[in-house]
């Protein structure tokens, strides 16, 4: 049915402007095929998001729940209170640290994997990527057993005469578990970038007497920057909005933005305030990611040009 459309396309894209657009009924099959998905997403994504945005302008009344107020006092409350400043600073601090650690661990690991022989390469790639599909609650629970006072890490430290340390319910626990969860999101794009590198560029540098270290730094690494960039954007965004890991490994005192939203919605029942924090998280996330992208992209294009 759309084969007729395709066959008319080369002629249409090329010549006169008047014949470029097919009559509207030619698009009808495509619109009808997309209609169920569009309906689903209009009802369950666009409408609810608009309602949530509207909710941020509501006032919370303990007796009646959300009451329409149409002012910005929720934003004033979140942006003006040092309590929420601490939470947002902690959230983005953790996200930045996790991103840094994922770059430092994931990039060399992807490079090492790419230089392995074949049975091992696929096996270890699978070992690194497969945890992606295991529920995050399970992984958080695994870390809580490794890090608690009698856990394996403290036993290991004890064998060398250190500790025991309080590791669970600390920022350290949140960071290490988040790195574990996010590492595949860094390895995947770097691995993809590595696959696109022409191995002859490396060989050329080596044959021109560059040392392996210089080759790695000047030839391989610059070609990985796009991969590292998209990986770190993904890791940062996901870490900043992570819920299960901070909820289970941060305990009750160490709140991040996501767990604060959860508390506002399901304990304090102050939905307007919770929605405001979530929207600010979304916006802050977008701003940080766009800025990061702009800055790094500019630097990258300059160094290449």
């Amino acid at each position, binding site marked *: 049915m759309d084969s007729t459309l395709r066959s008319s396309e080369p002629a249409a894209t090329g010549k006169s402007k008047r014949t470029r657009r097919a009559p509207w009924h030619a698009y009808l099959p495509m619109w009808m095929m997309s209609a169920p998905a569009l309906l689903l997403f209009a009802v369950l994504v666009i409408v609810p998001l608009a309602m949530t945005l509207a909710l941020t302008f509501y006032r919370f009344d303990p007796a009646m729940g959300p009451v329409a107020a149409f002012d910005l006092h929720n934003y004033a409350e979140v942006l003006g209170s040092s309590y929420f400043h601490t939470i947002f600073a902690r959230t983005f601090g953790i996200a930045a640290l996790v991103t840094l650690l994922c770059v430092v661990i994931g990039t060399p690991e992807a490079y090492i994997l790419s230089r392995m022989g074949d049975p091992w390469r696929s096996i270890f790639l699978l070992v690194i990527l497969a945890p992606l599909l295991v529920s995050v609650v399970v992984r958080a629970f695994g870390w809580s*057993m490794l890090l608690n006072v009698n856990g394996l890490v403290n036993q290991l430290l004890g064998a060398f005469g250190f500790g025991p340390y309080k590791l669970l319910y600390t920022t350290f626990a949140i960071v290490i578990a988040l790195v574990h969860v996010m590492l595949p999101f860094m390895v995947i794009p770097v691995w993809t970038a590595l696959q696109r590198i022409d191995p002859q560029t490396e060989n050329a540098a080596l044959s021109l007497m560059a040392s392996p270290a210089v080759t790695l730094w000047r030839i391989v690494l610059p070609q990985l920057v796009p991969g590292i960039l998209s990986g770190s954007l993904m890791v940062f965004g996901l870490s900043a909005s992570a819920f299960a890991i901070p909820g289970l490994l941060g305990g009750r005192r160490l709140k991040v933005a996501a767990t604060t939203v959860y508390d506002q919605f399901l304990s304090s029942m102050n939905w307007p305030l919770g929605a405001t924090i979530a929207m600010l998280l979304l916006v802050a996330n977008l701003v940080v990611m766009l800025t990061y992208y702009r800055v790094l992209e500019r630097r990258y294009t300059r160094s290449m040009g």
Partner: protein
Amino acid sequence: MRKNGPVALAFHTIVILFVLAPLVIVVLVAFTPEETLTLPTRGLSLRWFRAILDYPDFISAFFNSVKLAFASATLALVVALPAGLAIGRARFPGRGFLNALLLSPLVIPGLVLGIAMLRFFALIGVTGSFAWLILAHMVIITPFVMRLVLASVSGMDRSIEHAASSLGASAWTTFRRVTLPMILPGITGGWLLAFINSFDELTMSVFVTSPQTVTLPVRMYMYATESIDPMMASVSALVIFITAGAMLILDRVYGLNRILIGQH
């Protein structure tokens, strides 16, 4: 190709240990015969797996999750396959917007979608409805189905379809006998990936499940915030086994590296 040096291999070993440690410890502890979570354990026992059977909360949550994952993955496929075919194979007004919209749950945090749906469900009075929970899950797993449908459609040789229609096959026959068999691995892979993602989903479900419709990850999260005993480990171990089984099937059907990395 140059080989990895000893430093590189040591680094690699540490990374692999780091990746595997939390999963291995969960499986080990699940077989403990002791009353509490202690390591190292003496002997092996299945007592904590048997304990799950006496704890109906986990059993009902497990069946909720299976039903939910099955229904939402199947329905997401029904909705996303035609849209994916249209987006992947034709140019039409609104195509770019539709593509961005259907992939948007990958960028919007589950937390934001969760509270948005909680608010929406409360306003239209369907809080706690299983049918609306299925719709909510369809939204977050549609991108995974879409990506695999788009990938298999883009790698397809169109001339076979043209041959079929020039030999007099109707559009429907061409789709059923030619197109569908060619994209079947992508469809099956997309369904399985959607199933796993729905089965594992926590952040959005925390907000939109009710005590009757609570899913396994949500139940486990609640359980872990209140108490930690070896039953948590045995349930987690079961989840690991089920996921590993699904991954094995996924690997046979479509290739796990292909799905996770997106290479074709």
